[in-house]
């Protein structure tokens, strides 16, 4: 009773007591002149090799060192500091971190290659992560305990070169930040959609820590792409995301402007409710019955045939996909040469069924496809390039509405006699939901004059991924024997998917990255369209690397103790580096 009385009356004193006890036992930094951070929140950065490095995955590391480095000042001291840390702490995880808005990957590659002090160089282009680690001078280091982010300053003052800092004047709320939010955040987060952040400025501030976390860990905007290599449609530029994070870390200053969000929110809802007028669709396919998603439980897959056999060739130009994306992660619109019939999900998509439904081989592009098993270093198992049966993936991350618009000059063929299947991937949301998708098809008015977009896949089955392995890479390659244009990348993996890269090695033997997704997000099943289609000349080797994380460090790994085989169920894995292309040599068309 006494305890309760005192607690009731002494609430503020209780807080003060905790504070003073905390201070007296040294829970804060002992540096009394400048308040250095004592903990660092989770973050993800791309390193100089293009890999995504995530603090949150280092749960088993006792200590992680971050050494501030710069190419222009204090470089040798930073290398020397790394050397001394490696000697004194041979088992510790070590990183350089480079605070510089300029991408200097090539220069760091050269530097690190020539040095014996090898470690990933984290590209802190927003400058905010170095600041949150409390790194003030180049060739200083901090030690972080990954489990709770606790920071211990390790070495300081080896150089006088300051770590670059964000100048508060560098970020202009109205000119810089609002257009970025409008383009990359608002479509999904209006008050008419999910997680209604942008209702007004107070609401945005109420979500500020969540926004900060998703930006620091590069979960948002979804997709996990490395935007370094070329521009893609709808993909945020790295410098825009850096500016947004800088603004958030500054405490989201509105700089005296009136609250712009109610109008932005309203205007976006109007735009979302009035999609581009495409007129009356030529064909409408509708699910004959709804898929029901219970309030709680594991993710589910369901399949349903919505049309077929089709009576004529369909040359589609645009698709608009209406589904209830509150319960729908994504839906695959599939074109098959056989009906779904009575095949159950288990039968069609069973473990080890390598061919699955990818039955048509692409015959005109005769390039051989190679499989590379990690145990066999050379690319040598020949295979064919398969036609991809999935025509379109409609996912909830497609912000405006799930649409595919091939543009005025292109079409995609659904051959006569096809069967149209929908594959729905659903997740529970806390209340029962349902999805009865409607697909509107707009045909090309003049198909004979359109370029035909084809779907290819360097499909691979028959693999097995060992338990516990954090990075298991599978490679495929195909020699392209005619000139083509690559118009879209559609990689697919399941919950162990970690990263995917598409490369092209041209006749001059130079290997170029076409697409790099170092932080593959299973949840979003993104597809990427380069702003300019990529010309692939005859004689190019197209190669893909897909990396899987079957370890416990992958937070959504269903079971890190098990071997994983090829299969369509979520517990299994898929290896589908898909792409869409146009043939440039018309005479080769069949």
């Amino acid at each position, binding site marked *: 009773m006494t305890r309760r009385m005192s607690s009731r009356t002494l609430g503020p004193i209780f807080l003060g007591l905790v504070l003073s006890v905390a201070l007296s036992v040294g829970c804060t930094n002992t540096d009394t002149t400048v308040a250095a951070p004592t903990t660092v929140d989770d973050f993800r950065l791309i390193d100089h090799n293009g890999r995504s490095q995530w603090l949150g995955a280092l749960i088993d590391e006792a200590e992680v060192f971050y050494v501030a480095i710069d190419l222009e000042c204090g470089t040798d001291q930073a290398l020397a500091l790394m050397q001394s840390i490696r000697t004194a702490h041979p088992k510790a995880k070590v990183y350089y971190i480079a605070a510089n808005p300029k991408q200097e990957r090539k220069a760091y590659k050269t530097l690190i290659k020539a040095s014996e002090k090898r470690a990933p160089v984290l590209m802190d282009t927003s400058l905010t992560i170095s600041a949150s680690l409390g790194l003030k001078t180049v060739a200083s280091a901090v030690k972080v305990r990954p489990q709770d982010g606790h920071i211990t300053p390790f070495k300081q003052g080896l150089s006088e070169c300051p770590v670059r800092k964000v100048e508060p004047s560098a970020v202009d709320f109205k000119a810089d930040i609002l257009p970025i939010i409008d383009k990359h955040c608002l479509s999904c987060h209006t008050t008419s959609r999910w997680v209604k952040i942008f209702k007004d400025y107070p609401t945005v501030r109420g979500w500020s*820590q969540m926004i900060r976390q998703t930006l620091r860990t590069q979960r948002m905007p979804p997709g996990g792409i490395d935007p370094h290599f070329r521009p893609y449609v709808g993909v945020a530029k790295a410098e825009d995301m850096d500016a947004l994070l800088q603004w958030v870390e500054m405490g989201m200053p509105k700089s005296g402007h009136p609250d712009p969000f109610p109008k932005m929110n309203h205007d976006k809802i109007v735009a979302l409710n009035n999609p581009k007028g495409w007129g009356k669709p030529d064909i409408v396919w509708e699910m004959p019955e709804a898929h029901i998603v219970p309030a*709680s439980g594991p993710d589910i897959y369901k399949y349903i045939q919505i049309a077929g056999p089709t009576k004529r060739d369909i040359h589609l130009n645009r698709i608009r996909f209406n589904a209830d994306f509150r319960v729908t992660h994504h839906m695959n619109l599939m074109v098959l040469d056989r009906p779904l019939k009575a095949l159950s999900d288990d039968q069609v998509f069973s473990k080890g069924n390598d061919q699955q439904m990818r039955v048509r081989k692409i015959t005109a592009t005769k390039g051989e496809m190679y499989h590379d098993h990690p145990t066999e270093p050379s690319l040598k198992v020949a295979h064919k390039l398969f036609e991809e049966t999935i025509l379109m993936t409609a996912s909830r991350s497609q912000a405006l509405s799930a649409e595919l618009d091939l543009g005025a000059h292109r079409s995609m063929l659904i051959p006569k006699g096809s069967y149209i299947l929908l594959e729905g991937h659903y997740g529970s*949301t806390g209340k029962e939901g349902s999805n009865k998708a409607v697909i509107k098809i707009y045909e090309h008015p003049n198909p004979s004059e359109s370029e035909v977009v084809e779907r290819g896949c360097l499909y691979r089955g028959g693999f097995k991924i060992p338990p516990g392995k954090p990075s298991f890479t599978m490679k495929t390659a195909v020699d392209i024997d005619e000139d083509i244009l690559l118009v879209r990348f559609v990689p697919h993996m399941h919950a162990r998917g970690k990263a995917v890269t598409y490369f092209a090695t041209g006749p001059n033997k130079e290997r170029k990255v076409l697409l790099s997704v170092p932080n593959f997000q299973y949840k979003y099943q993104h597809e990427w369209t380069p702003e300019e289609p990529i010309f692939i000349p005859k004689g190019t080797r197209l190669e893909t690397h897909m990396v899987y994380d079957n370890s416990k460090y992958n937070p959504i790994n269903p079971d890190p103790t098990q071997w994983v085989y090829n299969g369509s169920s979520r517990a299994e894995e898929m290896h589908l580096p898909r792409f869409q292309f146009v043939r440039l040599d018309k005479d080769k068309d069949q």
Partner: protein
Amino acid sequence: MTLLLLSILTACSSLFLDVPDFKRPNTAGEIISLHKMGDDATALVLISHGVDCPVIQQYSPIIKEMAASFAPKGVRFAFVNANTQDDAQEVAADLKEYDAGIPVFLDENQKMSMALAYKTTSETIVIDPKTWTIKYRGAIDDQIRYAGRLGKPRHHYLKDALGDVLAGVPVKTPSSRAYGCAISYLD
């Protein structure tokens, strides 16, 4: 200052002495008291709540089921909502839509959540009302992550912690990492 206090509280959560009483309105505007709730309870479960948070929404049916199954054993569940952007009406509407069936402390000045050192919604605290000490802090289970959702949980942290508290033995896993919507403590 708020952030400094928060970081000290969270960095030094082991220094937590006893949980004081908090009196806050519920969605009906009635003042509810934490200690009064503990009068006839064997354990209290306080879950940080936020409107429009997908993690809380997904956990709502799970919370409802657990609250019902532990009610006969004298365990009481409640939400604590510290979101400055959620008003009472929005919280009421959200609780109606995602029916977890438990009351909520509307922590309008955020001081209750700050004192309890909540960092994110869905973070769950188990309190022993005999001693007003915190026996468990962390996730309900490990099913829901930012990157997606496991088919079923591998660890039932809350259920196991409650089992230990009811059995009068030390909680085997007294903390875990909670995934939810990060709470913004605003001045």
